[in-house]
């Protein structure tokens, strides 16, 4: 290790970088779908966020609409509240 440590470190850098590049090449070897984006969908970040980085990155945020939750049954709650001596009444939304 004392003599060959630096060779192992160099080999590791080359091997892992090569592995990542090979994976990227394989990933780009086929096109599944194309999306055309215009400047409307791609605003540049404000200048103060770009002061220390000259890179431009694209991040796509997807939104999925969750199913509406089923309305809660309140009858049981009413009965339990009445048994405990409370009276519940509906309050109009403000």
């Amino acid at each position: 290790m004392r003599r060959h440590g630096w060779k192992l470190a160099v080999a590791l850098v080359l091997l892992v970088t090569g592995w990542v590049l090979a994976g990227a090449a394989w990933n780009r070897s086929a096109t599944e779908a194309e999306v055309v984006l215009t400047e409307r969908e791609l605003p540049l970040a404000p200048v103060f966020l770009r002061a220390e980085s000259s890179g431009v990155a694209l991040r796509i945020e997807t939104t999925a609409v969750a199913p509406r939750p089923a309305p809660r049954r309140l009858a049981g709650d009413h009965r339990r509240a009445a048994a405990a001596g409370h009276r519940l009444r509906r309050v109009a939304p403000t």
Partner: protein
Amino acid sequence: MTRDEAQARADRVRAFQDELGALEQEGALALAADQRARVAAHHAALLAALTAEHDIDATGGQKQLSWGMRIVAFLGAVAFSAAVWFLFYRYWGYLGVPVQVAVLAAAPLVGVGATELAARRDRSGTFATITALVALAAFVLDLSMLGQIFDVTPSQHAFLVWAAFALFLAYAHGLRLLLVAGLCCLLAWLSASAGTFGGIYWISAGERPETVIAGGLVLFGLSFVPHRVRTAFPAAYRITGLLAVLVAILILADWGNASALPLSRVAAEHLYQVAGFAASAAVILLGVRRGWPGTANLGSTAFTIFLYTKLYDWWWEWMPRYLFFLVLGLVATLLLLVLRRLRAASQAVRAAAEVAP
């Protein structure tokens, strides 16, 4: 002879010279003038040879200065690493992808070359520590930026690769700071892997501190692997592993919701409070028995923190402040008495071992 062994020999020579002077002053020993001159000449030649070959600290003043140099080296390495990081971010948008990749891959290689050069020129390893840490930062930058450029799925295995890189450089040049950096990466990989094994997404593994306990125990186990050349390295494995375990237990003792065990929050907190006291007491005992001062100090510090945390939970709300702090002072005194007894016991064991042969 390694640098650690050379330093230990120089320390023994200095202690011998001090003790010889004291014995002569007290009249217990009087060496003849020629004997004293022969020993002094031998020691002077020995220290000169050790200094020339291993760049050791021959005096107490040099040793203190070396500690200062190590701290400055660490701060310098952090600053250089930040500079490399921000330099790339500042200009990478003006470069094409092939140039970006070439720069990213070349930076750690240049760092490895600089480390090799620094280690040959400066045997103390101070400058090699700086260049090696910068090389590690460049390799971290390399993989994380390649991931961003080519949209690679994040994986915990990057930590294993960084750990291997840091450990190669640490073992090649005897750099303890690089070893600790590598062990931190290894701990992150072990914890994330333990998390994924339990069905957690690897980035969220830190939310279940039991995964860190598993990683810390593995590092502690690795400290028992014999090191013939890097004799100071097992202590770094031991301290890093035990520190990870104790910190994770401390978090779980106050945040039971994070536990992966099928227990209520309160039950998990009680379990880890007991485990914290037991573990830190066991670490103290292990350190005293094996003669590992760093381990014993870690255990004492952890035990004190566990105790003070509990005292705060129990008494801060209902005790008057003067009484609370008075109790803390009394507890500290009690702890000192217990530790003094432990110290006396370990001294007695050592004295008995010295008399036995």
